């Protein structure tokens, strides 16, 4: 496989990885602000942050669908949690 071919084939995984890390930061700090962990926000500020976070979620759904072939639904993500085995004591 040539370097050019390999680069092309690896592009979706690369894009997914980089965009997911950036989105993780946007969502993480957006929710930190919304929850008041860095100080109280006004109603208007919370509303605007909510719009920002909702659009970040849309980007995630596009990523899930276009690059990873999943629908990124809450149900699908919740199933992941339910599959976590319980701790053995």
């Amino acid at each position, binding site marked *: 496989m040539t370097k050019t071919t390999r680069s092309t084939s690896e592009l979706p995984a690369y894009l997914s990885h980089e965009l997911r890390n950036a989105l993780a930061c946007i969502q993480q700090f957006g*929710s930190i602000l919304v*929850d008041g962990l860095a100080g109280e926000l006004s109603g208007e500020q919370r509303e605007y942050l909510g719009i920002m976070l909702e659009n970040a979620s849309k980007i995630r759904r596009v990523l899930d669908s276009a690059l990873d072939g999943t629908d990124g639904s809450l149900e699908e993500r919740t199933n992941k949690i339910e599959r976590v085995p319980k701790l053995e004591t």
Partner: protein
Amino acid sequence: MDSRKILIVDDNADIRLGMHLRLKANQYETFFAADAFSGVAEARKHRPDLIILDLGLPAGDGFTVMERLKQIPFLAVIPIIVVSARDGLGNQKRAHEAGARAFLQKPVNDAELLAVIRQALGEPAGTKKPTLYDQGSV
């Protein structure tokens, strides 16, 4: 009751800070490592109750960390939650086979992460403060 200790191993400083703020707000004590070597060293030093582990790390990767931890009896029992931006297709199965309790793909919402942490630590549901964003309040 003492705070449960969580080691965050991720090479992204912003991710580490964001997780620290969220976990601190939920009464967890956090420690950090930014590469695979430090991940094992910090685990030895602090003996955390749980490890949040990225897969793509300098000086090895998350699988290397899990392999090394498994070789140290008092660290082998620590539950590990893999939080990675890598695709879940092959990595999720590999992470579970390596001993991870859960594989979460970034971006992870806070309620999801906290639920998995609680489950891995054997804490009852609803003992931590929920987030407004995850509740759909914004």
